[in-house]
């Protein structure tokens, strides 16, 4: 037994050099070696492409090292909040628009470290909208843009005798419904018209198309209770009741992208990020992006990722320089091209290796998207209520409450935050 204890202690001693390095910085030498902590989340292999893209920058700045930590998206915001409130914010972090919105006051205004007037005009307005904090200062730079949109199983439509590319140029949701029913009838293995991702963001795409909104016009209060939203909710429930939309997504945890890949649904309201996966996985039918049907109007919802730094981080100047480099035309172009994302830069001229037409469709959707959609989504109070709103929509879909109660509940909850 004594031998055992001694060997355990020896093991501990041997292991301790491995264990104890708490990230000490080397002593300052000529070019002040700097290690930037970068927080990142992945959907596929974005982190690999990111590092690849920035290799030349790191080569030009040999004193800069990157410590890249990948955190699961589900815990990303919590991790950031913990690090920031604990006094250890990362130097740089990849931010989804929702997370940036929640942390907008903690993000670092970059004007202290660079000339922002040069930067601003380089990016699309709808994406830059997310990068301003309440004082109007820029705290982030857009790196990728995403657009919500519709992907369709072209083979299935063909089997029903419909040229979906033509039809989609002018269709409304009513036209869509008609077409979907024909497609389902013509394809024995196909069961549903359209799954919608189980997120308030995707739902809002259709909501905006029906003329609805979340907030009142000066963003002082929640106004989920409005004719457009109610019309949309009723339509949404009707589609579920008719089984044109599978119940298992919003009322289960089925993944719409999986359903689409399996060929059981005719369309999918997802977004530009699905292109990459579908390209890899779908081999049994022809697919592509088409214009979304119009409700009262056409709309998408802009989204994307930005790169930000935080107040109190260890190396703000190097962080900001790094951010600017990653977001510049050369780097973000290369990154967006290889991750198959849309660019958020005005001057982008990305030639995608494949699926160029699909990306054109998505870009066009963004072009017709009104600015207020982005403005709503960048409101930090809205982000606190969307989880609850999603739950109330489900209650309505399940038939547990009626549509008036649903919207009123959401507005009441909003009142807690829009004080």
């Amino acid at each position, binding site marked *: 037994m004594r031998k055992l204890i001694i060997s355990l202690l020896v093991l501990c001693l041997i292991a301790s050099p491995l264990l104890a390095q708490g990230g000490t910085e080397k002593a300052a030498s000529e070019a002040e070696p700097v290690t930037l902590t970068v927080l990142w989340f992945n959907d596929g292999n974005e982190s690999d492409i990111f590092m690849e893209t920035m290799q030349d920058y790191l080569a030009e700045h040999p004193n800069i090292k990157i410590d890249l930590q990948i955190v699961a998206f589900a815990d990303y915001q*919590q991790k950031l909040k913990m690090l920031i409130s604990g006094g250890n914010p990362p130097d740089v972090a990849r931010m989804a628009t929702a997370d940036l919105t929640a942390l907008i006051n903690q993000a670092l205004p970059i004007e202290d470290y660079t000339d922002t007037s040069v930067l601003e005009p380089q990016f699309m307005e709808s994406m830059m909208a997310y990068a301003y904090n309440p004082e109007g200062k820029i705290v982030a730079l857009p790196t990728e843009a995403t657009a919500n949109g519709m992907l369709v199983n072209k083979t299935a439509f063909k089997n029903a005798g419909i040229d979906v590319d033509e039809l989609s140029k002018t269709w409304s949701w009513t036209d869509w419904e008609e077409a979907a029913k024909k497609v389902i009838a013509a394809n024995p293995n196909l069961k549903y018209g359209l799954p919608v991702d189980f997120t308030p963001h995707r739902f809002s795409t259709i909501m905006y198309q029906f003329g609805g909104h979340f907030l009142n016009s000066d963003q002082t209060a929640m106004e989920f209770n409005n004719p457009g939203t109610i019309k949309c909710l009723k339509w949404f429930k009707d589609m579920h009741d008719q089984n044109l939309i599978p119940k298992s997504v919003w009322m289960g945890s089925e993944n719409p992208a*999986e359903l689409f890949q399996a060929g059981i649904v005719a369309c999918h309201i997802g977004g530009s990020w699905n292109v990459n996966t579908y390209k890899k996985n779908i081999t049994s039918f022809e697919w592509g992006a088409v214009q979304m049907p119009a409700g009262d109007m056409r709309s998408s919802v802009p989204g994307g990722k930005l790169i930000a730094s935080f107040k109190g981080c260890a190396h703000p100047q190097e962080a900001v320089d790094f951010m600017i480099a990653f977001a510049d035309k050369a780097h973000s172009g290369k990154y967006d091209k290889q991750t198959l994302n849309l660019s958020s830069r005005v001057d982008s001229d990305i030639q995608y290796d494949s699926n160029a037409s699909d990306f054109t469709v998505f870009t066009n959707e963004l072009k017709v998207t009104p600015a207020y959609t982005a403005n709503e989504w960048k409101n930090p109070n809205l982000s606190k209520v969307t*989880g609850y709103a999603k739950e109330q929509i489900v209650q309505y879909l399940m038939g547990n409450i009626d549509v008036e109660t649903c919207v009123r509940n959401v507005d009441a909850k909003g009142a807690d935050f829009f004080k």
Partner: protein
Amino acid sequence: MTKFKKGTRQFWIPYLFLLPNVLIFALFVIIPAIQGLAMSFTDHGIFTEPKFVGFANFVELFHDEVFWITFKNTLVYSFLTVIMLVAVSLLLALLLSKSTVKFEKGFRAAFYIPSLLSMITVGIAWRFILGDEMGIINYFLRSLGGNGVPWLTDGTYAMLSVIMVTVWTYAGYYMLIFISGLQAIPGELYEAAKVDGASPWYSFRKITIPLLAPTTLVVSILATINAFKAYELITTMTKGGPGYATKFIVQQVYQVAFAEDRMGYASAMSIILMLMIGAFTVFQFAANRRGSDNE
């Protein structure tokens, strides 16, 4: 049992043995726990200064509809899970403790392996099986001409699915504890009972159950505590859905604390959760003691 007199040097011996464990625990769990729970009396966003509000959070909790739904769900889930876990693991133990089954050790291992997996793995594996369109069971049923079962898309079924998966995960773990308990019961007692003409069922009732009581207590307490804290498994499988059907308190705590940015309120919820678990535990200790008093 040793009892050292106060004032002697030896008095400190037991404290010294306890010290490393208690010290670490106090520093890294108890103190943060007290700090965390103390927040329940404040209104506290993660980046804002805490503002003392007394019992306001608890009053608000009283009227919080969503909270009570999760409260009820947690109770139902925990109650049913513990009962099923005790029953199933006991059944397995009875089958696998008397060497009447071939390959006994191998089977024991098979049932134990699920508990070794991380909850993310379990959640993913079961989604592949119970998924509505993409799940293996429904696919099989439909190919035979039947309808799929709404495992994860109907409220009641979803609750049952989650309970079933929890039992699948831990039955083997508690089975092992029961096996040891069973093996500690002297075989002579059963022999004597048989000689007296007792039926197997009678032996089970009068010998096995009473002598197994202490083991049953350990199992049910550990199972209860773990059931009330269930989080990862549920979120991976159902995300709390459909609707609120499988949303439990811990999930709500997480959402309120981080998404809604109300740490104080979330902390108040945790206190209610602790009280619930505490009540169940005390009840089980009492029931167990009363049971053994009756011998």
